[in-house]
């Protein structure tokens, strides 16, 4: 009886909450994404650098691997946070690290100011709920 009742309540709960279900994979509310290096405002000679990606209270999994509390890094270069209900685009401004990488060599940045920001995507490259996004930083590329 208790089991039946529990099931009933569970079913009712599902019905009530279903319309508001986000499609996105849940992320721990205390997850924190940040760029370890470079720091905001760093001047980079020549435009080639290693970028180190930092993640607290969550783990890394390669693309296509569905595991709770994980995702993979995406680098947003000179662009804003993309729509949260679509897969993160894949182009020169949105760089995917589907191999589970936590550092990347950036090359070929033109001299001038560039913005960098990290965003975690789930196994299908969708942002999480809540989205796990770093602060946006600005670096200055100086010519050699």
């Amino acid at each position: 009886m208790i089991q039946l009742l529990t099931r009933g309540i569970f079913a009712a709960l599902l019905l009530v909450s279903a319309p508001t279900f986000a499609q996105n994979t849940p992320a721990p509310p205390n997850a924190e994404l940040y760029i370890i290096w470079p720091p905001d405002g760093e001047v980079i000679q020549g435009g080639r650098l290693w970028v180190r990606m930092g993640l607290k209270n969550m783990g890394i999994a390669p693309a296509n691997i569905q595991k709770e509390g994980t995702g993979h890094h995406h680098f947003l270069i000179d662009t804003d946070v993309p729509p949260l209900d679509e897969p993160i685009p894949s182009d020169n401004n949105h760089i995917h690290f589907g191999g589970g990488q936590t550092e990347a060599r950036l090359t070929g940045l033109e001299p001038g100011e560039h913005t960098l920001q990290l965003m975690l995507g789930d196994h299908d490259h969708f942002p999480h709920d809540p989205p796990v996004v770093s602060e946006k930083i600005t670096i200055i590329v100086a010519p050699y």
Partner: protein
Amino acid sequence: MKLTLSTMLAVLMLVVMPAQAGDTPAPEEAYLYIGWPNDGEVIRTGGGKPFRVWFGLRHMGVAPAGIDVPNTGHHHLLVNTPVPPLDEPIPADDNHIHFGLGQTQTQLTLPRGQHTLQLIMGDHAHIPHDPPVVSRKITVTVQ
């Protein structure tokens, strides 16, 4: 007959698998290091509070334990212990800390005194790669 087969298999395994490393290949250029703390760092936590350790990895990716994807593995932090046997799963105890969820940093609490820290990657089954991906061993002092 069954016995003979398994004996043959055992002999074959002994011959084929030198006791040096696991079966999962790692990129030759894979580079594992402790991003912070630095070697020789004096950490003034008083011994009771946690400090952050972040794991650096280049030319290779991270995957949770149990996930078999080429060129990935998960981090293990060796605390006050030498590198374990390379052909067995890395032990799981206070000296061998597993990050099987794919974590790339941790909060570590150590008592006052000198401690050594070292990272080693393990494959989906917690066995070191071939070649093994191991960081330099560093020494920190907690005051």
